[in-house]
């Protein structure tokens, strides 16, 4: 079935979060950034080159910074006395509302690059949209994050091209990663986020073309992350990330 967009819509009947709620919205994007930051952190000392290691570490740090700003503001909006650490470290897997894409476990370098590229392309659209928010704090965080996302995209799309249009081996690995991760992309555009899809499509299409990669045609899509229904991998990630705070609540450096 061909549709107007690169990815088909999420299946009917999936529980939907209420995107109109500011707290929910802030948490969703904070969770995306925190979880990806954790995944990128796991790659440190495993990248193919020292420079890439540093790049992934820097990118992780940017995502962490965005997450912290969003959690802090979410805590203020909720007005229940929860700070950034409470929201990051004392919510369970079912309470996390990140998209499934960012929680996918690390594979090879091509997998990390494709995941990052798909997410960077999405964040470019998201932050550009939120930079126009009438909430000044959200607009400020988004304006800052947008500059960083464009730098991340430059890195991830550059490597997407080198891998896709590189050797036979790198091409196969990049295509495999794209085929594997594609099923987590419809979720990015659920409900009110559908307006971000046209811009994302354009970025992805042109980068895949240049990288000689094929847009996956499998229409099977998995969703549910925004409503707290995660793949099996998030629980393990949180267990590792939250262990220290849960064992020693309030512990500080």
């Amino acid at each position, binding site marked *: 079935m061909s549709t107007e967009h690169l990815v088909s819509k999420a299946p009917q009947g999936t529980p939907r979060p209420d995107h109109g709620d500011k707290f929910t919205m802030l948490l969703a994007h904070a969770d995306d950034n925190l979880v990806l930051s954790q995944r990128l952190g796991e790659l440190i000392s495993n990248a193919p080159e020292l*420079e890439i290691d*540093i*790049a992934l*570490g*820097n*990118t*992780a*740090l*940017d*995502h*962490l*910074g*965005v997450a*912290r*700003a969003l959690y802090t503001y979410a805590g203020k909006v909720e007005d229940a006395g929860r700070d950034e650490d409470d929201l990051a470290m004392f919510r369970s897997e079912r309470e996390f509302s990140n998209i499934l894409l960012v929680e996918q476990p690390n594979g090879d370098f091509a997998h990390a690059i494709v995941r990052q590229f798909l997410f960077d392309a999405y964040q470019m659209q998201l932050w550009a949209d939120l930079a126009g928010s009438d909430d*000044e*704090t959200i*607009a*400020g*965080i988004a*304006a*800052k*994050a947008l*500059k*960083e996302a464009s*730098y991340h995209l*430059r*890195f991830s799309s550059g490597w997407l091209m080198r891998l896709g249009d590189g050797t036979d081996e790198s091409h196969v690995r990049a295509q495999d990663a794209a085929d594997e991760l594609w099923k987590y992309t419809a979720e990015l555009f659920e409900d009110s986020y559908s307006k971000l899809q046209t811009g994302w499509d354009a970025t992805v299409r042109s980068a895949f073309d240049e990288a000689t990669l094929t847009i996956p045609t499998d229409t099977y899509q998995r969703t549910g992350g925004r409503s707290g229904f995660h793949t099996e991998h998030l629980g393990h990630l949180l267990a590792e990330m939250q262990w220290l705070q849960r064992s020693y609540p309030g512990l500080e450096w």
Partner: protein
Amino acid sequence: MVNTTLLDEAAVARALDTVVDPEIPVVTIADLGIIRSVDIDGDSINVTITPTYSGCPAMRQIEDDIVSALRKAGAVSVEVETVYLPAWSTDWITEEGRRKLNEFGIAPPVAEADVVCPRCSTGSPRMVARFGSTACKALMVCSACGEPFDYFKELH
């Protein structure tokens, strides 16, 4: 004994001038352009700063340093607030800050094509890594003298 001298703008500015970027200690936070506003109310001071990068790990240290510098100058209560809007850009780094960076061996922020080696002052260096030793820097190497150097990334 509490120092009850009321702080004036000049004294506060002098105190803030002692606060440097912990990762690039040759430039002050004023040179970097991250101080957004300073409100003085007797011996209570409210300083608003903005981060260079969202994940800049130096921000917390900078906040602590601001508090201790102002307390040393006689402030009783110091509040440091972080704002994100308008987003910081390298255009806010002062001329003085740019000069100090260059002297220290870090090419100050200009367009990538216009970067000049801070060591031998020759142009057209080559980019080695877009992500450098801190979030705000990239690594380049000079085509003339062959020395690698940090380049403070231009951010608009």
